[in-house]
């Protein structure tokens, strides 16, 4: 994005400023990378209690009409026909050549679907949806600006929300949702997240988001958490971030998303290319790496094998919970097996690393 593109503000912006959040540009928005407590403390708060994230930058597209399911089946690699009403599904959209346009979550409601996309991809995703929608009897609407979105994540997430809602939170299973009121605000209460902890994502009218944020933050053990903690939490789980670990140059089969790519569900955009790739053999794969000596892997650092550079880090950090360096990156398939000994070049040092199948952190409160 060029510097003269004005940054947008989420409906919770003023709250972040009041809390002393360090605001940075992200996905076209000004969002807090951290609060004064710091990334490490915010990360620990989510693992140990409950953190609140403003994720209002995410895009929400509504799809309804007689052929809504058919359109989604056409553009999504996962099989939305298996969704119950009030169920959600992680998926991806691909180009004809299999390159990933975005990863997304598909929600099925009684009379519509909602696609939740990455904020940074909203414009291109909308254009892609519009282009394909013209072939189907559907109505689509970009409702992103109508919603604020708060992620409530951590082992104490349900306890934090329970006093504020009559919805039976225990009855909402993982990747399921309910319509309900939280602190008097009507919205969708979704048992989803990006941290490896139990938690909820709340989709509420944008005008109500700041008030809800304030109310929830007053609860016992609740901390505000920023983009920095969100990144280290998702990395400990090996959850990919679009723009780092996933992009149009890589397919879902390469990017550890083969499990959600339903090649046998019928035709969809990118299926032929993905089938051909599967038959020919996937030549490069996204892997998890655990550093076995001290080092802080960062995006762009080379991954090396015995015969030189074989890839580069797409995401990395020093795991705040585990205390060692963790990373993801693409390598040739021959180096992708768990246990393969590789190394990451960190500035002038070659730090040994071993391929490990994420999640790196396995003690989270998330119940699948």
């Amino acid at each position, binding site marked *: 994005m060029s510097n003269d593109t004005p940054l947008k503000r989420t409906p919770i912006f003023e709250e972040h400023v009041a809390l002393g959040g*360090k605001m940075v540009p992200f996905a076209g928005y000004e969002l807090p*990378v*951290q609060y004064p407590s*710091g*990334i*490490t403390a915010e990360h620990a708060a989510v693992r140990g209690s409950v953190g609140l994230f403003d994720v209002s930058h995410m895009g929400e597209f509504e799809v309804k009409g007689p052929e809504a399911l058919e359109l989604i089946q056409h553009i999504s690699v996962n099989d939305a026909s298996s969704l119950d009403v009030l169920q959600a599904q992680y998926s991806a959209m691909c180009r004809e050549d299999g390159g990933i346009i975005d990863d997304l979550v598909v929600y099925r409601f009684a009379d519509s679907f909602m696609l939740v996309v990455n904020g940074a991809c909203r414009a291109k995703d909308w254009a892609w949806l519009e282009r394909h929608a013209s072939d189907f009897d559907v109505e689509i609407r970009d409702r992103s600006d109508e919603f604020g979105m708060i992620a409530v994540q951590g082992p104490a997430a349900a306890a934090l929300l329970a006093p504020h809602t009559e919805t039976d939170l225990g009855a909402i299973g993982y990747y399921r949702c309910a319509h309900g009121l939280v602190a008097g605000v009507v919205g969708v209460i979704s048992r989803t997240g990006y941290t490896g902890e139990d938690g909820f994502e709340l989709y509420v009218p944008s005008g109500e988001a700041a008030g809800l944020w304030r109310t929830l933050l007053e609860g016992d053990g609740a901390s505000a958490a920023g983009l*920095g903690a969100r990144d*280290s939490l998702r990395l400990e789980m090996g959850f990919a971030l679009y723009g780092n670990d996933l992009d149009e140059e890589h397919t879902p089969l390469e990017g550890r998303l083969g499990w959600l790519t339903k090649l046998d569900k019928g035709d969809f955009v990118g299926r032929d290319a993905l089938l051909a790739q599967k038959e020919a053999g996937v030549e490069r794969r996204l892997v998890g790496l655990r550093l076995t000596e*001290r*080092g*802080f892997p*960062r995006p762009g650092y080379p991954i090396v094998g015995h015969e030189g550079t074989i890839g580069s880090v797409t995401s990395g*950090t*020093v795991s705040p919970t585990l205390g060692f360096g963790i990373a993801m990156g693409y390598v040739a398939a021959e180096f992708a097996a768990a246990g393969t000994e590789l190394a990451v070049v960190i*500035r002038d040092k070659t730090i040994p690393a071993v391929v490990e199948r994420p999640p790196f952190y396995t003690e989270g409160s998330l119940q699948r």
Partner: protein
Amino acid sequence: MADFLEGLLYSEEHEYLKVTDDPAVYMVGITDYAQGELGDIVYLELPSAGDSFGKNDVFGTIEAVKAVSDLFSPFTGEVVEVNAALQDDPSVVNSDPYGAGWMVKLRVSDESELEGLMDAAAYQEHVGE
């Protein structure tokens, strides 16, 4: 807002120098402003006692959650002591940059190199706070 301690010297590279009992030896660390900009510090690479550096040479590295940053020697000199406690707990640099978060003690070889350093007010202006 960051703390700009009076009585210290400051470099453009966000290091402070604090006088010690030995007039030729300075305690060196990074400023409160710098630690705030870097955020949580995860690792420090520091030199060993006896190492020598020229003015503006890289004498160490700070790995913070958000970014990696070099440490630049504020003058030509020799390391006389390293704060070994930081290896176990580098977060002290965040919590107490001017106290327990000091990094090295450097013996200055050429006093004239101190002339370009700033006082607290000039450094505060330098960082625009």
